[in-house]
């Protein structure tokens, strides 16, 4: 049996299963309330209230949205290729949900005679795994846009494809510095080494350039403003999901928001010390610190969306290839030289 399976099964398999179920549900609830938080925060930034009718302070709005989407008629274009059209949202949502399994969120606890680790799986190649699954998730967007037989959807999926492929390179190069410094691809090890080797300092301090590149490339990778070209309403109606409605559209939206959550979780893990806080105290409350850092990063993403106007398409491509990629490459090379020399 391969090391990958062994690494994932250091505790009884049913504990991993329970943890996976809990994590997936937490991520789904976070997604639901992220949509509300985004509308609320952007509302306040634009001097209005945001949704406030469904329940106290509009807190039941995500549930109302869900009921609306589920009850909608699930029609599709007559010329659409139905198998691909129906399966694309599933692929996108599956890829988005599964990446969260390798992100650690706590130190591990003794519960009822069992030692429960603070992650679902500690895979030695976790970082590559996340990028690999993410690259499969892109197919959901491309195939969905192509199979719905619509010019706007096709143009949207072409843009998504070009943008995601362009910025994936910078994203992968920006984390190379962290990998070189921690000498590991396992996210559990990376979090550990930030805490133990760097006087509690997170990698965002020595890898500041990498962190900035990661956040910028990540914004483009999740197609968030100001890089939301794939969904530019004025040009493309809606993007690759133009022809989607009801819960199929909901699945695409879910995939996008969960990608944002995963990306923020990855940034917290790689650059902000993961579930640790600086100093030797209160480490047992790991999940709380993790969620606080995650919330802060997601707030930054929402803030950017409310603040910055959308780029032009040629500006986006030029920025990705001529600014972000050289900076990320230089950062990786300099980090390698410094690590070898010191």
């Amino acid at each position: 049996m391969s090391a990958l399976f062994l690494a994932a099964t250091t505790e009884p398999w049913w504990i991993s299963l329970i943890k996976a179920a809990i994590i997936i549900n937490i991520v789904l609830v976070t997604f639901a309330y992220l949509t509300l938080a985004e509308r609320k925060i952007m509302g306040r930034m634009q001097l209005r209230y945001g949704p406030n009718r469904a329940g106290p302070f509009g807190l039941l709005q995500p549930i109302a949205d869900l009921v609306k989407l589920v009850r909608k008629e699930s029609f599709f274009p007559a010329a659409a290729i139905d198998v691909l059209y129906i399966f694309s949202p599933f692929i996108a949502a599956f890829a988005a949900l599964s990446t969260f399994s390798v992100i650690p969120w706590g130190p591990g606890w003794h519960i009822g005679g069992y030692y429960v680790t603070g992650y679902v799986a500690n895979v030695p190649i976790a970082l590559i795994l996340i990028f690999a699954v993410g690259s499969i998730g892109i197919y959901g967007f491309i195939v969905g846009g192509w199979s719905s037989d619509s010019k706007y959807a096709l143009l949207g999926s072409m843009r998504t494809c070009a943008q995601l492929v362009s910025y994936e390179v910078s994203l992968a190069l920006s984390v190379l510095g962290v990998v070189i410094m921690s000498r590991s691809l396992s996210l559990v090890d990376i979090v550990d080494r930030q805490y133990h080797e760097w006087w509690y300092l997170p990698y965002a301090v020595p890898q500041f350039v990498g962190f900035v590149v990661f956040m910028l490339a990540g914004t483009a990778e999740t197609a968030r403003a100001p890089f939301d070209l794939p969904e530019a309403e004025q040009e493309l109606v809606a993007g690759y999901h133009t022809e989607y409605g009801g819960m199929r559209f909901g699945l695409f939206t879910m995939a996008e928001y969960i990608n944002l959550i995963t990306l923020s979780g990855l940034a917290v893990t790689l650059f902000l010390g993961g579930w640790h806080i600086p100093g030797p105290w209160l480490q047992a409350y790991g999940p709380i610190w993790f969620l606080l850092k995650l919330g802060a990063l997601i707030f930054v993403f929402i803030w950017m969306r409310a603040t910055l106007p959308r780029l032009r398409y040629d500006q986006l491509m030029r920025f990705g290839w001529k600014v972000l990629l050289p900076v990320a490459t230089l950062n990786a090379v300099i980090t390698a030289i410094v690590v070898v020399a010191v």
Partner: protein
Amino acid sequence: MIASVGNVLVWMVWVGAATACLASGIAVVTLTNPFFSALGLIGNLSSLAVLYLLASAEFVAAAQVLVYAGAVMVMFLFVIAYLGGRADAPWAGGSKLFRIAAVVTGGALLAETLVALLWKSSRLSHSAAVGPTFGSPAEIGRSFLTDHLLAFEVTSIVLLVAAIGGVVLGIQPSPEEETTA
């Protein structure tokens, strides 16, 4: 008990991945719509990655999905979707020489596989011992920079040449050159 359950699981995964590999390979060459062929190729590369995983090569498996099933095939789909593959007539086949060459090459590969299976079957029937670090990124990096340094460097030069070639082919002539030409 646990080992046997694990073995059954590995066998089930192997049978599933091998079947998917063959089925998607056949789909690539039989489907007439290029978009579906490309999807078949993605399935083929992904199921190959599962087989790599079973052979304790998890880094190779992840790299396979990331590079081939992910980045390379996205380009294929991009081009096919741009060219509007749906309306294309199926490929009528090339010259007779091509067909003969394809049959001969395929037959040679099949014969080679059969020979390897039948003559060396005693060596294939039990798994080779691998160390705990086999297939880890550190081990692969070490063998790249020691045992296979020449091949590694030559490959990087080939990639560099390909990248420069891509840039040269992609340069559009400036308007002045176009008018003089």
